[in-house]
């Protein structure tokens, strides 16, 4: 069969149900094979949309996402999603077409050095050099994307090689001597960690996106319950621990709760699980958690002691490590009353500094109110996908995530335009679930073309645009730190999102009244098919509280 037909067999063998892509000259053979391969293909309107859709699919389902693009401009359009997938450890295989081998390096039509351009942003990549390699490479690509610390893997396939006749035999084994992720944590270290937890008087569990990736939410909750430990999550870790738990401190970091950040500041032991001490978490790093010792559980050894030196490093899969940590901790029979004073302190912070905002006196919709209304309208059960900006932080603060894989956003790269296509992917992966997008009037426009994809493919996402007429987050920084010199942040009232939605084949709605917002939202959610709602909110509201850049966590403002 042709190499591209073998490619289809490999995709099926990997359990791929759907790919997101857009064809072109260099991948015509691949698209010919898709024609009757029996794999669902969603035709996106821009390759970046396809890349983010594959990410959203992967984040919602835990499976490997697949995005397909042609050579040159198709491949360069994938640069943002590939980087995004690397930063947030999302398992996605990117399949790019390439010009025929005799044109390589000659500036042939639509030739770009895709491997070279993407080298620093992939977990791994392959340039196919012989059609016979294709099946092995493809399985290796999926294996690498899915295992260890997940990430993007790119396979670049020259068009002539893709037509090569090869005998196809299913690949049963891959051998990657240089790639052996550590799965089991070191037993002694786990015991050490249990002892440290049992001795701690002011412990905090600080969990990141690694908990979601490792499907370790249940194990995390079990450890937290066993020790009655306070828990905070990063932006990426939300849903890894139920927000309704009395042990929940809220999100930490730049726009986290005061309680979470103060607890980190006062802790004597911090147990980091699948989190990487990003600058948005630590604030001024020299003053981060000054009294704490650190247990650091991570699958990626390069994260250990990268930003903050770990006293007890444990490399491996969080799910397994936490399960064993639970046993070790229980065996120690630590006295829970040692934490009484700590909990009293935490309770005091909670009472003194809850998340709060001043609601409007009239019908104006405050952005925070909008998120609370969404929570109510969805019963807290939706898969919520956000874009990047103030609306993202308010959603993280006010939605209250109970379960993993229900909160999908771009954390590490902070990619505006991520939301709509990622939601599309999540909805395709979870057809039974309600998928809602919270976006900004700025972000939504960066991949708004995918509304047409949603309409054409009957992907019924509900898009709520928090419209403040500004690139709000940048406006906030200009207000707070740059003397209110608003430079290029006003979007005005363009475009008309209702008309735009209708032009794309979606239902378009506009909500402006707080008093009817909840019913309006319910109505939008009940409307079949993709729906876009332009929600007019307070124009100059700020996201608080906030750790100002370069400040320590204990000096939160707002």
């Amino acid at each position, binding site marked *: 069969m042709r190499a591209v037909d073998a490619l289809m067999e490999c995709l099926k063998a990997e359990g791929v149900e759907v790919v997101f892509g857009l064809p072109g000259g260099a991948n015509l053979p691949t698209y010919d094979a898709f024609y009757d391969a029996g794999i669902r293909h969603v035709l996106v309107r821009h390759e970046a949309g396809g890349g983010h859709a594959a990410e959203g699919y992967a984040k919602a389902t835990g499976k490997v996402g697949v995005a397909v693009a042609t050579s040159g401009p198709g491949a360069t359009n994938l640069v943002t999603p590939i980087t995004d997938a690397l930063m947030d450890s999302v398992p996605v295989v990117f399949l790019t077409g390439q010009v025929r081998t005799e044109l390589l390096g000659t500036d042939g039509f639509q030739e770009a050095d895709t491997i070279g351009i993407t*080298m*620093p942003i992939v977990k791994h990549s392959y340039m196919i050099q012989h059609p016979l390699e294709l099946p092995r490479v493809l399985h290796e690509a999926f294996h690498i994307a899915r295992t260890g610390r997940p990430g993007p893997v790119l396979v670049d396939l020259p068009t002539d090689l893709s037509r090569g006749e090869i005998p196809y035999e299913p690949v049963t084994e891959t051998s990657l001597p240089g790639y052996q992720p550590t799965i089991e944590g070191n037993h002694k270290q786990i015991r050490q960690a249990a002892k440290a937890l049992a001795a701690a008087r002011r412990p905090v569990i600080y969990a990141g996106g690694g908990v979601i990736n490792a499907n370790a939410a249940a194990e995390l909750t079990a450890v937290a319950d066993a020790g009655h430990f306070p828990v905070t999550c990063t932006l990426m870790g939300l849903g890894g621990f139920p927000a309704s738990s009395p042990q929940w401190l809220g999100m930490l970091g730049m726009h986290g709760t005061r309680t979470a950040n103060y607890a980190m500041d006062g802790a004597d032991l911090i147990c980091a699980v699948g989190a990487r001490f990003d600058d948005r978490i630590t604030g001024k790093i020299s003053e981060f958690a000054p009294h704490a010792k650190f247990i650091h559980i991570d699958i990626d050894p390069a994260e250990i002691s990268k930003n903050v030196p770990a006293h007890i490093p444990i490399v491996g899969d969080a799910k397994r490590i936490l399960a064993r940590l639970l046993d070790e901790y229980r065996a120690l029979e630590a006295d829970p009353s040692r934490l009484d004073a700590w909990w009293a302190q935490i309770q005091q912070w909670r009472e003194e500094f809850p998340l709060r905002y001043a609601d409007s006196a009239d019908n104006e919709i405050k952005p925070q109110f909008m998120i609370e209304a969404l929570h109510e309208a969805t019963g807290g059960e939706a898969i919520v996908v956000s874009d990047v900006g103030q609306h993202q932080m308010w959603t993280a603060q006010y939605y209250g995530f109970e379960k993993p894989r229900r909160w999908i956003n771009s954390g590490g790269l902070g990619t505006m335009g991520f939301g709509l296509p990622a939601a599309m992917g999540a909805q395709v992966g979870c057809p039974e679930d309600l998928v809602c997008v919270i976006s900004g009037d700025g972000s939504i426009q960066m991949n708004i073309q995918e509304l047409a994809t949603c309409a054409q493919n009957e992907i019924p996402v509900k898009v709520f645009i928090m419209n403040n007429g500004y690139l709000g987050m940048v406006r906030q920084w200009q207000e707070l730190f740059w003397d209110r010199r608003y430079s290029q942040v006003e979007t005005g009232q363009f475009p008309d999102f209702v008309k735009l939605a209708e032009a794309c084949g979606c239902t378009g709605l506009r909500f402006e009244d707080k008093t009817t917002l909840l019913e309006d939202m319910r109505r939008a959610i009940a409307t079949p098919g993709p729906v876009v709602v332009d929600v007019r909110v307070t124009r100059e509201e700020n996201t608080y509280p906030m750790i100002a850049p370069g400040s320590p966590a204990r000096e939160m403002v707002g």
Partner: protein
Amino acid sequence: MEAGTNAPLSLEELDAAVGLRTGRTHVLSILVENRPGVLTRIAGLFARRGFNIETLTVGPTADESFSRVTLTVDGAVDPIDQVTKQLHKLVNVIKIRDLEPDTTVQRELALFKVAAEGAARSELLELCEVFRGRVVDFTKRSVVLEVTGAKRKIEAFEQIVRPYGLIEMMRTGEIAMSRGRAET
């Protein structure tokens, strides 16, 4: 130093933030799968963190599916650790060692093209012998001398022949092997 304030930053502040190098040279020996692009991936990791690779050699090993990369780089102690961890993450990298000078033998080969006329010729040839070098080209107006050894020996030889009229010098960069029975 994020734009949390509109105050300008002095050049001194910016310089201070660039990070101090200890100046200690590291000799890294990296065993890699013999696959296209490996070298670019390795070099890219150093470039991203602002390390200057001083020497770099690549060659086959006893097993043809692997190659050995030896590179020397100046760096601070902690950041080099960060780079080696990142190197480990490259799928085609099998093994990395940050070699200690005391327990390794290091060698490189250098060629010196020197203007050699009249009496200087015999002097040069004698010097070459003292350094256990070899004459590999010999013309009326120049000689090409080959010297192998550790970096210090090569540099000493360079100092000595320079006054004779060093036309050009080429060095391969060091390779390094651990002493004793164990593999590097």
